[in-house]
């Protein structure tokens, strides 16, 4: 089956598939859903959504240390409701995986969106033999074929900064015969944060002679809508989740430690697990109760809600790693047939129950 036919089979345009392929590791469709309804399981048995929400609200009210964990498996619309739920339930918001794709805690950030990066005339490639380029890196490579390969360790980078201080931008631009005015440095997300910080500093150092931007390319198999979740949490609470999360325990948003740290310490007794992937077993087992919102039923959870997650065809939005917001459907007009994200109505019901 060709790619085009597969796309036709899931009922979305090629353009939408291409756009979403830079956010999601796989583009799934809403499929045969005719109604915007979640499905629910309680204790591993099918239940009505109403009963499951009532039970989930009871669990949340009875919890001493609840947290909404993950959040990267929710659409922007659903994340907005999740923040409201956390506030109503005096719970924590703990996005996962930890690590801000734009490294908000760095002292110097010299970054760019993908469209700007694609206009560069030289690409610095951090060498890592084991890694295969993902869709974002492949797109940059296609648009910026001229490449300079650099070792990925901190020592080599510090050496390069020293060379740049001595020789100026020529230390980089003279590596190619072509005139270089704009350099892009795609940095794999699993790069040592100190190395990422140094690349941004180098980029800022070089700005007087050549335009340079460093962009952290996420691992699409892990992040999903992480950037979207982080942005929504920040605009609604005012807090960054660069190193952890947000705690509403006293009714106000306060900085919180990160999910893994808290759970390993036994600091979370109820996890509302909303990640693109379920909590790892070693963490899930540390929580007395777990409520899962995901794309598959989870028999090990106290309550499991099944929703389409980030499926194409939903009338909802996600955010790309660089802040570009994308609809999950070709036409979100109410009459166009896209399906409302059932996670939104589910979370609203839950908020009403908790209040």
């Amino acid at each position, binding site marked *: 089956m060709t790619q085009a036919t597969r796309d036709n089979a899931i009922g979305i*345009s090629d*353009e*939408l598939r291409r*756009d979403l392929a*830079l956010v999601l590791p796989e583009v799934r469709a809403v499929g045969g859903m005719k109604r915007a309804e979640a499905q629910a399981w309680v204790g591993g048995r099918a239940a009505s959504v109403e009963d499951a929400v009532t039970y989930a609200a009871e669990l949340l009210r009875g919890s001493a240390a609840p947290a909404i964990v993950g959040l990267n498996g929710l659409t*922007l619309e659903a994340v*907005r409701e999740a923040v409201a739920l956390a*506030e*109503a339930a005096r719970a924590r918001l703990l996005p996962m995986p930890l690590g801000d794709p*734009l490294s*908000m805690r*760095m*002292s110097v*950030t*010299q*970054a*760019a*969106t*993908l*469209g*700007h990066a694609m*206009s560069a005339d030289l690409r610095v490639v951090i060498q890592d033999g084991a890694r295969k380029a993902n869709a974002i890196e492949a*797109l940059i490579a296609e648009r910026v074929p001229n490449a300079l390969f650099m070792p990925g360790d901190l020592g080599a980078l510090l050496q390069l900064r020293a060379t740049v201080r001595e020789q100026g931008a020529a230390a980089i631009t003279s590596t190619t015969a072509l005139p270089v*005015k*704009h350099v892009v440095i795609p940095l794999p997300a699993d790069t040592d944060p100190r190395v990422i910080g140094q690349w941004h500093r180098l980029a*800022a150092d*070089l*700005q*007087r*002679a*050549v*335009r340079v*931007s460093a962009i952290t390319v996420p691992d699409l198999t892990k992040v999903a809508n992480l950037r979207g979740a982080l*942005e*929504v949490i*920040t*605009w*609604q*609470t*005012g*807090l*960054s989740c660069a190193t952890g999360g947000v705690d*509403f325990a*006293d*009714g*106000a*948003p306060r*900085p919180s430690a990160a999910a893994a740290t808290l759970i390993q310490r036994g600091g979370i007794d109820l996890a509302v697990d909303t990640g693109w992937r379920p909590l790892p077993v070693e963490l899930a087992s540390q929580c007395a109760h777990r409520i899962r919102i995901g794309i598959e039923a989870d028999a090990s959870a106290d309550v499991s809600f099944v929703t389409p997650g980030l499926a194409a065809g939903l009338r909802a*939005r996600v955010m*790309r790693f660089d*802040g*570009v*917001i*994308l*609809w999950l459907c*070709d036409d*979100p*007009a*109410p009459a166009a047939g896209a399906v409302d994200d059932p996670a939104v109505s589910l979370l609203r019901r839950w908020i009403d129950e908790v*209040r």
Partner: protein
Amino acid sequence: MLCGYVDLMSEMLRITNGRVYDPANGIDGAVRDICIVDGRIVAKFDDAVRPGSVRTIDATGMVIMPGGVDIHCHIASASVNRARAMLGEEHATHVHKCSKRCEAASGLRAGTGHLTPSTFLTGYRYAALGYTTAIDAAVSPTGARQTHLELDDTPNLDAGFFLLVANHAKLIELIGRNDEEGAIAFIAQLVHRTGALGVKVVNPGGVASWRADATQHLVSTIDSPVAGAGNVTARRILHTAAAAAERLQLPHPPHVHCNRLGLPGNVATTLDTLAALAGRRVHLTHLQFHSYGESDKGEFTSEAGRLVNYIDAHPLVTADVGQVMFGSAMTLTADTPLEYVLWQITGRRASSPYVSIESELETGCGLMPIEYSDKNYLHSLQWAIGLELMLTAKNPWQMLLSTDHPNGGSFLTYPRIIAALMSKTIRDEQIARANPRAMRNCRLRDLTREMTLSEVAILTRSGPARALGLTHKGHLGAGADADITVYDQGLAGSSSGCGGGGDWQKMFESPRYVIKGGKTIVSDGELREAASGLRLRAKVDADERGEREVRDWFDSHGSYSVTQFGMHPFERERMKEV
């Protein structure tokens, strides 16, 4: 309708016995009743209205003004959100929480932040100051979706934004081909698709120059060529933006942040910009940052007088001042080369965090925290120039209040600024604390003017509304939106409408009532509930030519599909066309 009576469900409100300051309608402190039906002001209630169905606010001893209108602020965008994240310590200490009961009863939400409050808090704090409309001044085309989402979470404000167009690579390309028609069509399509209220011109050509050539940090004059763009200059970009605003009949003229912001001697560039647009409507923003002379020693001086003289003589020009206030601020600008230079000069030395992000060949954003000190010569001069501009302008309709929030300071400082404008005594107290050399190099000490309440109403609501083309705002005449602020003049301790005797800051900090769209959201000085605001967008005839240009742009340079650009028609339909 029931038996010929007005629908009993509709909210009717009468504010009675208050002194009304409605300069747009020539009312200067007269005692008048204000009648409200269904979110609008009416001349009087219909005869069919049952007595007793109208709620009444007795405003005896109070001052009534239209709701405040902030013509230039940064409250909802990707860059503002980045600023929130950068100011972690401030957000950890400025916390607003709701009791569970309050949350359940009113739907009010918690939040954090002072300089860059979270979205809900932004709406609450503006309302608590009596402001009901605010315009975000710098949104990139690609960032428009995020701005709309953030504004959806910003209650109590009717809001819109200005779209950053002047350094868009496609626009530069069209101007370079001498294709003004194409350029205007392209701008029309951008404004239409994104749901913007107007166009913003930031350092025209300067950001594009720096994008093309890292050595081009500063535009020398408005006739310097844009790097890599042939014969394109700032002057041509300004002409194109002005022509677009005229042709498209945008409610607000081009909102211009001139070249060479913050540099000594930049008044020449500002005057060149005004001369280039002579005979056309234009709004210059944060004028204070563009009002500098340069002494023989290369020192900053005030040239506010030259700009005021020009503006006084040119009624088509409006400006907001971008008042600097002593204390913490957050520089946040689409002028990325400026921010880079600022970081090199000051921030790097102070180890300030610095962020620069280029966006899709459209524009960029730069951010860096800053502390304005009254001991610092330049900061003191900047503070004085802002006040000088407002106090010397003959026509307050042309010189409007802003802090370029959060660049010059928070919008929460507006009452302090108003107090300084209304009282020479207060100004003198502040002058005594400011850098003495700076005070000697400006005219502020000699200015005796004390603004009246009517003039304050012009600076803060009627003037901005008129400059923005918001005919239903900034006044209290029949048909206006029922956005109204009622201040308790007793708090000011002055029975007159002007003068140095009153504690005007206290009065303007704590309105007794704020009515938004006919709904009382602040009562007895307390925020009671949140009202959803309207989204204000310009009505634009976007034609096929512009559509084609946008599609071509996305086909050749887009990192996402044109179908994902901007707002869908059904989203635009939900906004209010201006």
